[in-house]
């Protein structure tokens, strides 16, 4: 039977734009500034750069290679690279990213709501809303929103419906068209707002926090752990999203160069967003202590409460506020589109047509996102469980390449590029399991240390027990379904149905 024509990005720039917009998410705007300021500013940036070279870029290269060679989503790519016995690893990666997708649409919905509110003047307090109040305007707004299920579920639905429509239209007609506009608009806004922040009197204090290195911090292991965690989460390495976008890449794409662009662009946008957030914060906050308090307030507190309050006091707040939340919404929705496409592509590999698959993913994403829309505690739990789970997905990706043959992979990557970095790639991929053990061990240690009495309890939001239980359920499920997954995914160019023990052949490629 003739295979239908494989969809493709229209060119090299298209896949780069899609991949960068996948990596740049809300975390660049609300996590990066806080972590960079807390862990040594410039010293943290140096640590992040090293983490990109050891963890993020090699993993993105692994993902790009797996997607572009197998021409299958994560489940099929793991089957063809790691052997049929290990197809479950692709299933685990998909489950982890879906776990994130189910609450990420809610977060994207918050950003859309705040943009809509800012654009209609709803984030500009008048005298009647502030006089005599014991809580700030930002707190009142946030509490009114987050305790209103009609609004939280409604904006979650808006994010899902919009994304379903985009993915429904396909790679060229949907994702490419939308992501191009989103990325350019977001970059323009962030650059403009960062430039404006840098020019504010008093912004230098915030910028010093961000850029001037505190060299002594590099001697602290915590800085390195935070830097590697930032590189792992923010660049999309180990999420499986690059793997899926690479399925639609044209032949002879620059694997190493494209991966480098994604990782370095992600940190560059993080730096600009941090200049915007920290510059504004320190220029507008009444005291440096107040600015520090805002940074300590977590993602939600900083973004939806403190920034709302501080921007409202600035000249030009009527335009700065909607632009800031528009950039946040564009970053959030473009990353959500990538996760949605991951689910859709994997379903398509099981024989679903794109439109049916997108509709199905949309319905499931809406229903399974409702608990996070109704309970921020549940959302925080899911963020914790699947955020740390991403490290496991990263490890599995490296193991797939080690099984495939790391020298063979390095040779294929070098053959695709004008830059020869195969030797470094091979070394970094071999180092990833060690880095994983350190990072993973640290997160478990933190969880036990912070919850000495309840770390084992699966009902506690940030416990080790809740991670173990949820990962355990998913692992048991994908292991039980291994044969179904291996047989159900269609064949790709690497699939050898006549040699089902694909794992057996892989070692022979190692040279």
């Amino acid at each position, binding site marked *: 039977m003739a295979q239908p024509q494989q969809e493709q990005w229209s060119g090299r720039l298209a896949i780069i734009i899609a991949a960068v917009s996948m990596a740049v998410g809300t975390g660049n705007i609300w996590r990066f500034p806080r972590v960079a300021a807390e862990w040594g500013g410039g010293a943290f940036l140096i640590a992040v750069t090293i983490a990109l070279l050891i963890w993020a870029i090699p993993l993105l290269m692994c993902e790009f290679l797996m997607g572009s060679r197998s021409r299958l989503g994560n489940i099929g790519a793991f089957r063809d690279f790691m052997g049929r016995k290990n197809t479950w690893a692709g299933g685990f990666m998909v489950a982890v990213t879906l776990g994130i997708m189910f609450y990420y649409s809610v977060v994207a919905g918050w950003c859309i709501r705040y943009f809509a509110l800012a654009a209609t003047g709803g984030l500009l307090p008048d005298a009647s809303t502030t006089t005599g109040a014991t809580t700030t305007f930002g707190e009142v707004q946030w509490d009114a929103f987050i305790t209103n299920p009609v609004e939280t579920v409604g904006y979650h639905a808006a994010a899902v419906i919009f994304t379903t429509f985009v993915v429904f239209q396909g790679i060229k007609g949907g994702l490419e068209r939308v992501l191009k506009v989103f990325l350019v608009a977001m970059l323009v806004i962030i650059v403009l707002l960062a430039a404006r922040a840098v020019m504010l009197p008093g912004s230098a204090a915030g*910028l010093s926090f961000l*850029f001037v*290195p505190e060299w002594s911090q590099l001697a602290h292991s915590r800085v390195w752990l935070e830097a590697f965690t930032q590189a792992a989460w923010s660049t999309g390495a180990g999420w499986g999203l690059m793997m899926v976008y690479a399925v639609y*890449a*044209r*032949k002879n794409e620059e694997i190493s160069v494209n991966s*480098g662009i994604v990782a*370095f662009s992600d940190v560059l946008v993080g*730096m600009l967003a941090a200049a915007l957030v920290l510059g504004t914060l320190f220029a507008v906050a009444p005291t440096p202590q107040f600015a520090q308090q805002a940074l300590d307030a977590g993602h939600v507190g900083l973004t939806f409460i403190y920034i709302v309050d501080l921007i409202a006091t600035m000249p030009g707040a009527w335009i700065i506020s909607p632009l800031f939340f528009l950039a946040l919404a564009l970053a959030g929705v473009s990353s959500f589109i990538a996760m949605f496409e991951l689910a859709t592509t994997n379903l398509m590999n099981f024989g679903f047509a794109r439109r049916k698959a997108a509709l199905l993913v949309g319905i499931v994403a809406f229903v399974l996102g409702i608990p996070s829309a109704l309970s921020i505690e549940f959302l925080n739990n899911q963020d914790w469980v699947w955020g740390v789970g991403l490290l496991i997905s990263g490890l599995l990706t490296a193991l797939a390449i080690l099984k495939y043959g790391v020298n063979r992979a390095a040779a294929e990557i070098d053959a695709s590029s004008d830059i020869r970095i195969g030797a470094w790639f091979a070394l970094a991929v071999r180092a990833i399991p060690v880095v994983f053990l350190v990072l993973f061990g640290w997160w478990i240690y933190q969880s036990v240390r912070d919850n000495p009495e309840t770390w084992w309890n699966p009902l506690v939001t940030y416990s080790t027990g809740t991670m173990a239980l949820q990962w355990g359920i998913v692992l048991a499920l994908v292991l039980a379904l291994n044969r179904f997954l291996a047989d159900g995914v269609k064949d790709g160019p690497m699939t050898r149905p006549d040699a089902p023990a694909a794992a057996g052949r892989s070692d022979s490629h190692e040279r």
Partner: protein
Amino acid sequence: MNGELVFWICFFVGGYSLTVGALLRIALKKGSGED
């Protein structure tokens, strides 16, 4: 804004921008890719 701060801003933002620019140049010079 003092000289040290300006130096480090140029170092990090400039360094990253140049790296991304150079990589983009390499990625795009092959044209629009092959089918």
